């Protein structure tokens, strides 16, 4: 840590960890419901659990990204954050809006729009919150001594993510149009601008952890984000195949979304090569695990498993089945959850001043979480493929098929338990690091 104001990041990360824990609880509720144990139905029906699970995911990832920005931008721009006080205001208001939304979902207060369930009045508060966040980041960056590519890509990702929230607030009478513009948010976030955020964080971490020259790393960063937009923008078409819009999307979406894995492949190759090339080996091994891990697992989850159902010929069978959930889990985990874990693992020792870099518990957390998540992916995958064959090829009734595949959700719950054990260990490590302190400035400057 080189600037006192970077410490704000710690509290965003702490909020992240808290919301992640809650997210998993609701995941279990849904896992049990799918396995035939829907005992909570009268209090937490499935649609409540699902909205809470996915919205908490988005909020904890955003909180993680914001923490990452508050940590990275001062260091890259060589300037203290313009206002630490406002950053805390922003943190608290983010937490309040998130919690209000989650509580509302238990009382039928929501919009039935997948991933964008936040009711309209709260949407406006989100906008205000994000404006405040962007203001702090942009002013810090432009008053800074330096404008690096890493900082620009990260900031661009955050700014575009904020702008893309707006099409999600349009109102339509037609379900088709509603869905069409919903994807401008959901798809263009995860397969577009969030990849810029991920790329920016990855590039920052690789510079710090491998010691490879910034110019080399940042050149490849441009190539990666270039590939991202080149494929990802028109790749939105893979959500337009079967929702009642023109067939042209079958061709455009098919071709461009099939190219999307290239950006993730480039990210994986980039991370591994920079690691091999690096001469300086930073002692923070755990951060390195999560960094390289994120680049590799995102290629598997988003790249390979995304490709597996992105061609129209396959998607016509898998669209809207548990196959989609399989891909959704590993993609979100690899690309965004793991990169947040990576920046937390890297920055914690720097903010607390304790050179607590490597521990058996930390490594165990990494392996349990990853193997658990891979196991969950397999369980969803088997359930999903069985569903596709029975329901869409053999033409069995939806509910009959669901009863056939219940057993795979028992496997899911077992693997999710392993995954959650890993997460718990990670959070114990997080707490063990202690809290951030200004003394860390001196420790780091020694």
């Amino acid at each position: 840590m080189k600037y006192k104001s970077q410490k704000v990041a710690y509290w965003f990360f702490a909020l992240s960890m808290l919301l992640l824990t809650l997210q998993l609880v609701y995941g279990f509720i849904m896992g049990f419901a799918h396995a035939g144990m829907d005992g909570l139905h009268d209090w937490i029906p499935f649609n409540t659990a699902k909205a809470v699970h996915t919205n908490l995911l988005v909020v904890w990832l955003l909180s993680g990204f914001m923490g990452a920005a508050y940590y990275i931008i001062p260091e890259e721009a060589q300037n203290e954050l313009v206002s630490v006080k406002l950053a805390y205001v922003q943190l608290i208001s983010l937490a309040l809006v998130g919690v209000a939304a989650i509580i509302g979902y238990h009382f039928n207060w929501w919009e039935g729009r997948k991933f964008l369930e936040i009711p309209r009045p709260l949407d406006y508060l989100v906008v205000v919150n994000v404006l405040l966040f962007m203001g702090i980041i942009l002013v810090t960056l432009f008053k800074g001594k330096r404008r690096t590519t890493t900082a620009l890509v990260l900031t661009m990702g955050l700014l575009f993510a904020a702008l893309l929230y707006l099409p999600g607030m349009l109102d339509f009478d037609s379900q088709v149009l509603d869905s069409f513009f919903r994807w401008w948010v959901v798809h263009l976030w995860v397969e577009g601008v969030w990849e810029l955020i991920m790329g920016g964080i990855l590039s920052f971490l690789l510079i710090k952890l491998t010691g490879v020259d910034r110019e080399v790393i940042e050149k490849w960063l441009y190539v990666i984000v270039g590939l991202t937009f080149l494929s990802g923008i028109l790749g939105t078409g893979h959500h337009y195949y079967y929702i009642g819009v023109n067939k042209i999307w079958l061709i455009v979406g098919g071709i461009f979304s099939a190219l999307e894995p290239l950006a993730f492949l480039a990210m994986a190759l980039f991370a591994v090569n920079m690691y091999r090339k690096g001469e300086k080996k930073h002692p923070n091994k755990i951060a390195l695990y999560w960094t390289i891990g994120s680049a590799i697992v995102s290629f598997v989850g988003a790249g390979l498993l995304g490709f597996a159902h992105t061609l129209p010929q396959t998607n016509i069978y898998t669209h809207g089945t548990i196959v989609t959930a399989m891909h959704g889990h590993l993609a979100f985990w690899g690309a965004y959850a793991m990169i947040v874990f990576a920046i937390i693992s890297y920055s914690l020792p720097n903010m607390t001043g304790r050179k607590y870099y490597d521990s058996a518990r930390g490594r165990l957390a990494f392996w349990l979480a990853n193997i658990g998540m891979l196991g969950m992916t397999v369980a969803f995958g088997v359930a999903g493929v069985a569903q596709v064959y029975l329901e869409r090829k053999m033409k069995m009734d939806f509910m009959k098929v669901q009863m056939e595949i219940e057993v795979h959700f028992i496997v899911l719950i077992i693997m999710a338990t392993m995954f959650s054990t890993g997460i718990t260990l990670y959070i114990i490590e997080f707490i063990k690091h202690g809290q951030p302190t200004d003394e860390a400035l001196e420790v780091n400057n020694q």
Partner: protein
Amino acid sequence: MLSKKQARAFFLVGTLVTFLAFIGLTVYSLSAAQDQSHSENITDSVVRGKKLWDKNNCMGCHTIMGEGGYYAPELTKVIERRGEGYVKGVLMSPTPWQRADHGNRKMVAYNMTEDQANDMVEFFKWISNIDLNGFETIVSPLAKDKINN
């Protein structure tokens, strides 16, 4: 070897070109001539049905046109599959809907009025007539079989 400047140019040009193409395709595919949804049939009743669909987050459990939760049946062709009476029965039920032959999954009891249930039915009817580029024949096999047999 590629320079950083060239890499940046690749990023900027690629983004700009695909972005413009995306906007162009959006305008084209949403133009009135390309409408596949029979938007002229979106009556007030259909709109009220959609609002109910939204307000209750039905999509949290069910999929429609393949979008939503994977917990409860696909509803794109539900009227053809089950008929209006059955669907209204489910929506107007004062107790959680559940079928003995379907395990113990329950639906939230919405206890809708007759008018509300009619609006939902109108919404589903509008949905079922949308041209989904072939997906409609795969997603609701029972409906398709009923028509063909």
